[in-house]
C-alpha cells in the first residue's frame, strides 16, 4: 500500500506524510540535497532564499521542543516566515477543530504546515482536505510515522556507513508505540538494508511486524550480535501502566544499552537515539556520551534534512523546469 495522498497528479511529492511508498531515488535525492544544506549551517550567513516570501506554520497539537525548534531553524534558514502554534487540545470534535484551524490559517495564505499530533493519521486527514498549493509535513502522528526523523537517521547512517545494502541494523525498545521505528523500518527497507531486527519484550512488539520485512527478537544480547547500527527508542514509562513492562529497573536490566552489550555489535558499530534520552532507562550514560554515539550529530543533521525535504516539496510546486535549478 503506497501513500497516494502525498503525491500530486504529476507524481511529484506534494506532502511529506510517510516514508512508505516513496522510491529509493526520492530518498537518495533528499539525502543528497541535505548534504548541500549542511554547509549552509557552517557559513557565516546561514540563509538561502528558497522559501523567501513563504509562510510556514508549525502546528504542534502535541508538545515537542526539539522537533519544533529544528523545523523552525530549518525554515528560517530557507528564509521562510515561521509561526509556531501549540493549540490547546480538546478531545471532542478534534478532527473538525483541526480542519477549522487549518482552514483559518490557510485563509492567511500559509504555504506549509508542519503538524504533530498524538493521533495516528492526523497529517493524512489534513492533507486530504487542503487545497493543492498547501503542503503538509508530518512531524509525528501518533504511533504511525515520523518521516523526517527517519530521514535524518538515514542521513546520519550514510555519513558513517558506505553501503546500506550490506548493513545489519537493530531497532531496540518500545516498537509498539513508536512512530520513529515504523518510519525507520520503511526507510531502511527502501534503501536496501537486508537485515533489520526489532528487539523488545513481547508486550512491546506489535503483531505481524515481520510483514514489514523485519525480524522480531526478544533477547537484546542475541539481537545485537554483529550489528552495524543500533537505533535505540525512547521508552515512555508512563505509557507502560506497570503492565507492558513491570518496572524501569527490570527494563534496563533486560533492554538497557550498556557498554558491555555494545561489545556484541560490530567493532565499528554506531549508536543512535531520536531523543530525548532517558539515561539509565533505555541507555547507559557511558554509551549515550561515548565515542560510538551519534546522538548529537542526529540533532545537527535534522536541520539540513528538514531543509532538504521542505525545498523538495516546494520544488514540486514550481513545476519541473524551475524545480531543476
Amino acid at each position, binding site marked *: 500500500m503506497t501513500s497516494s495522498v502525498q503525491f500530486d497528479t504529476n507524481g511529484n511529492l506534494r506532502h511529506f506524510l510517510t516514508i512508505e511508498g516513496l522510491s529509493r531515488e526520492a530518498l537518495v535525492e533528499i539525502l543528497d540535497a541535505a548534504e548541500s544544506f549542511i554547509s549552509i549551517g557552517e557559513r557565516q550567513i546561514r540563509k538561502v532564499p528558497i522559501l523567501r516570501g513563504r509562510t510556514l506554520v508549525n502546528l504542534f497539537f502535541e508538545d515537542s521542543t526539539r522537533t519544533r525548534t529544528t523545523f523552525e531553524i530549518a525554515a528560517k534558514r530557507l528564509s521562510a516566515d515561521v509561526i509556531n502554534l501549540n493549540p490547546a487540545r480538546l478531545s471532542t470534535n*478534534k478532527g473538525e477543530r483541526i480542519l477549522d484551524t487549518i482552514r483559518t490559517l490557510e485563509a492567511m495564505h500559509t504555504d506549509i504546515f508542519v503538524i504533530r499530533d498524538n*493521533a495516528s493519521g492526523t497529517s493524512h*486527514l489534513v492533507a486530504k482536505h487542503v487545497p493543492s498549493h498547501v503542503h503538509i509535513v508530518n512531524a509525528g502522528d*501518533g504511533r504511525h510515522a515520523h518521516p523526517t526523523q527517519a530521514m535524518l537517521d538515514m542521513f546520519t547512517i550514510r555519513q558513517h556507513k558506505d553501503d546500506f545494502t550490506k548493513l545489519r541494523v537493530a531497532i531496540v525498545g518500545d516498537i509498539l508505540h513508536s512512530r520513529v521505528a515504523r518510519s525507520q523500518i520503511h526507510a531502511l527497507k527502501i534503501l536496501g538494508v537486508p537485515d533489520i531486527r526489532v528487539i523488545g519484550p513481547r508486550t512491546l512488539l*506489535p*503483531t505481524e511486524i515481520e510483514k514489514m520485512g523485519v525480524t522480531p527478537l526478544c533477547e537484546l544480547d542475541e539481537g545485537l550480535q554483529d550489528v552495524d547500527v543500533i537505533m535505540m527508542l525512547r521508552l515512555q514509562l508512563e505509557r507502560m501502566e506497570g503492565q507492558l513492562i513491570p518496572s524501569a529497573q527490570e527494563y534496563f536490566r533486560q533492554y538497557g544499552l550498556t557498554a558491555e552489550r555494545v561489545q556484541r555489535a560490530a567493532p565499528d558499530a554506531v549508536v543512535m537515539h531520536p531523543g530525548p534520552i532517558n539515561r539509565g532507562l533505555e541507555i547507559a550514560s557511558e554509551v549515550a556520551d561515548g565515542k560510538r554515539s551519534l546522538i548529537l550529530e542526529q540533532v545537527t543533521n535534522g536541520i539540513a534534512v528538514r531543509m532538504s525535504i521542505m525545498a523538495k516539496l516546494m520544488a514540486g510546486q514550481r513545476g519541473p523546469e524551475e524545480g531543476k535549478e
Partner: protein
Amino acid sequence: MNVLITGGRVIDPANGVDQTQDLFIRDGKIAGFDDTTREIAVDKTLDARGLVVCPGLVDLQARLREPGEEHKATLDTELVAAVAGGITTICCPPDTDPVIDTPAMVQMIRQRAEEIGLTQVLPVGALTRSLAGEQLTDMAALRDAGCLALGNAENTIDNTLVMRRAMQYATTFDLTVFLNALDPWLKGNGCVHEGEVSTRLGLPVIPEAAETVALARELALIETTGARGHITQLSCARSVTQLADAKERDLAVTAAVSAHHLHLSEQDIGEFDTRCHVIPPLRSLTDREGLRQGLADGVIEAICSDHQPHGFDAKLAPFSESAPGIAGLETLLSLTLKLVDEDVLKLPKAVAALTANPARILGIDTGQLSIGARADLCVFDPNKQWQVDAEKLRSNGTNTPFDGRSLPGVVRWTLVSGEVVFAHDKK
C-alpha cells in the same frame, strides 16, 4: 385493497418455496398463489416478471438515532431509507438517549414508527438499567410493552454474575437475550483489528481475543442458564468455530453478521479511511472467509445492516477519534446478493438470511409468505446493477465505504401490510 403480483420468482425460504407464480394479497395479508387468485377483484397489479418476490427484509440491528441523536437521523428519515432497501422490520438496540429501559420508551418508539407507517420497528429493550450493567430492568414489563428481545447494546456487562442473572431472569419471561461479544478490557481504546494493518498504521487494536473470550463466557452462561441467546455480530473466523461447537451441543444460540464484515477487511482501511472504522473492527481476509463459510454452513443464520448513520463531520477526524459505524440500510440487500454472485450462497439461502432466519430468531410471523401472514414483501431485480452514491442515499447517513461501488440488486417495490410503501421510479 387487493393486490396481485404477477409472474415473479417467489422465494419463501420458510416454506421451502422457490417458483415462478402469482401472489395475491387481500386486506393486507397473503391470500393465495396462482390459480386460487384468479376470480377475485384486483385493485392493483404489479408486474413482477423477471423479478424476485420475497418476504420483506428483517434487520436485526439498525440504529435509527431517535430519540437522543436527532441531529444525525430520525425515524422519519431512516424508515424511508429502510423501505427503499426492502426492509420491513427493524430491531433497534436500546442505546438511545434516554435508554430503552422502560415500557414507556418501548411504546413511544413503536408508536412513532406506526404513525410513520413504513417499516415496523421492534425496540430491543435494555437488559440492565441505563445499560450500566448493574441492575436488571423490569423485564416482564418490557415484554408486555412489546419487547421480544433484550440486550445491552455495546455497553458490556462486565460483572459475570450480573450477566448470569440477567440471562436467568430474561429466560423466565421467554425473552431472547441479544449479546454483543466484546471483552471491554481487551477492547480498551482500540479501533482496528490487531494485525498487519494496525501495525503498519500504528492504530490501537481490538484483538481477536476481545471477541472470542467474551463469546466463550456468553456461551458458557447460555449453556448453564438455558437462556436463548443471539450474538448480534461476529467478526472473527474463530468465533464461528466456537459457535459451531456450541450448536453441536444443542445450545439455544443464534448469530448474525453485518453485511460489511462479509465484504470488507482490515485491508480496506488503506490510508486511514475512517468510513471503514466500525466496531467490531474489520478483520483479516481469513476472518472474512470464515464468516462467509459460517454463513454458508448455517452456523451464522442472519445478516444484519448494523446501520449507524452519522453526520458528515463524524468521520472527519483522525481514525481513532472518528465515530465508528456504517450507514447500511440501503446496501443490505445488494451486499447479500453480491454473495450470490460470488458463489458464497445460493439465492434462496441468501434470502433466508435476510428474512425467515432473523424472523425466527425474533419469534415473529413475518419473514415468510404463508397464507394469512402479514403481506410485508420485497420485490427486487436481482440482475440489475446500481452504483452506490453516498450523497443520494435516503438515509441521513452518507457514511458508507461502498460509495462508488457497483452492486447487484435493485428494489422495485416494498410492501408493508399489502400497501406499496416504496416504488422504484423506472428510468
